[in-house]
């Protein structure tokens, strides 16, 4: 057989496969977008445009307080785990020397421990030590442990080509370490830091397992969604899910555009 023909055969087979997989990934998301906009949520075809379920969602006080709690939890977790992840990255890449591998494995370890185990074990610890039922602070910390590994890996992947001599050059020229960080390092490494912030935010916004065991009666978005699920799926849940998907989509597009603009400017 002609090798060129085989090549393009392989290429097109793979392309068809990719399209099928993308369809598998996106069909449920598009389906519930239609379902949330329809008066017949079970079989919303042909599509309609009806925002009744969104209005019900926005007037529901349970969802409102859950949204605020989730927002607080996710922002604090994102900042905490990104700061810790940044320290860990700088430490491993610059200061750890021969022990870099050991530190890296330790910092990545939470990735390989199931979230539910993290939640359960933190709950057990706080209960045994302080007879505490869990509160926002403990939930933020436990979520940050899980997100920390992701932040560390994302920033390590972005930073390992960073030239540390630039910091030293800035310091030689008389900048304080803090100033060399803000004026030299931050402008160069911000895509990695942004990526880490977004990842941690999204992970902790959506994580049910950790928050479920550490927050008790405080509602968050996933726990309210989970609670509502037990009594059957309602169109409000479809609306909530679609809204989150749209926000995530917009955030990713914004990040892409920002990177492209930056590259054009450079």
């Amino acid at each position: 057989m002609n090798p060129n023909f085989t090549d393009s055969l392989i290429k097109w087979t793979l392309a068809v496969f990719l399209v099928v997989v993308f369809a598998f990934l996106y069909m449920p998301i598009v389906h519930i977008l239609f379902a949330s906009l329809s008066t017949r949520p079970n079989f919303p075809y042909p599509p309609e445009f009806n925002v009744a379920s969104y209005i019900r969602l926005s007037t529901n006080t349970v969802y409102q307080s859950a949204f605020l709690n989730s927002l607080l939890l996710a922002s604090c977790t994102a900042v905490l785990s990104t700061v810790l992840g940044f320290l860990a990255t700088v430490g491993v890449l610059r200061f750890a020397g021969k022990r870099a591998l050991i530190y890296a494995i330790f910092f990545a370890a939470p990735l390989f421990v199931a979230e539910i185990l993290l939640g359960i074990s933190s709950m057990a610890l706080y209960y045994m030590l302080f007879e505490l039922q869990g509160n926002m602070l403990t939930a933020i910390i436990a979520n940050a442990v899980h997100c920390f590994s992701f932040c560390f890996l994302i920033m390590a992947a972005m930073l390992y080509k960073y030239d540390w001599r630039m910091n030293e050059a800035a310091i030689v020229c008389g900048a304080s370490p803090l100033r060399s960080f803000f004026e030299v390092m931050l402008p160069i490494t911000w895509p990695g830091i942004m990526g880490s912030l977004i990842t941690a935010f999204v992970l902790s916004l959506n994580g049910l397992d950790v928050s479920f065991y550490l927050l008790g009666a405080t509602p968050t978005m996933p726990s309210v969604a989970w609670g509502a699920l037990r009594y059957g799926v309602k169109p409000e849940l479809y609306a909530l899910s679609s809204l989150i998907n749209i926000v995530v989509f917009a955030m990713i597009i914004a990040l892409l555009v920002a990177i492209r603009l930056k590259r054009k400017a450079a």
Partner: protein
Amino acid sequence: MQDANLQRRLILDIPTGFLLLFFVMPLAALVTLSFWQTENYKIVHEWTLMNYGTLATERAYITFFLRSLVMAIGVSVTLVALSWPIAYFIVRYGGRYRIIFSLLLVIPFLSGEVLRLIALQGMLGPAGLVNGALIRMGAAPLRMIMYSNAASFIAFIYLYLPLVVTTIYLSLINFDFRLAHAASACGANRFRIFTEVVWPLNLSGTIVGFMLAFIPTLSASLVPRFLGGPNGTLYGMSMAQQFGESGTWALGAAMGVVLFLFSAIALAILSYGVDLRRTGFTGLGRQ
């Protein structure tokens, strides 16, 4: 110089201390708890091996564990088999659209497990898209995909596919395809290039991807509870119930310890094949 030393120590010690306090300590607490007992929803500080005895002898727990294990292996192997062609296509033929392709894969991953399960339920459930369409066309609904282990299997594939594809993608994108060309120039055919060059050199990334799907599947509690149906109870779900409805914390803790040890052993065995420098994950490439 002392200043630099202090700075170095702070930078590495803060994250290390954080993990020791909030990651290692809770796990130690879990181990301790697993050797105690719970009576009437209260923890009794009495050292005992009873929880582990219950786990080793009770039929139900062994069944749950084996079912979870078979499910996790099946899901991870299927995911690796599905992810390779996708990642390979994006890296080889994606060109300047690579980043768009990989972001398109990640976006569904970002909306959270619960909401993605709701979306999937909209597809698979008794009144969902698939069965709704089948009924409309006059066919019988597919019982197989409602509340069964098959439904859980599809859900796991759906949940973790982006994770595995991204891992293999990161591995392949750091792979030097000139090596494949060199093999080709030396007369190897496609199959041999794949089995002797491309696959072994990307094995590390593949194993990491495998583990990243294997561990959450083994401990999953949401998917089986929501989609698994009467015969679909998995180990993680049973463990979660010990901390919820049944209130037998100590037994649940023992289940957690077993799960943790099993994952750790699996990880240790598999990581013999892992060379972190080749996973594309970390910056350990600089020697």
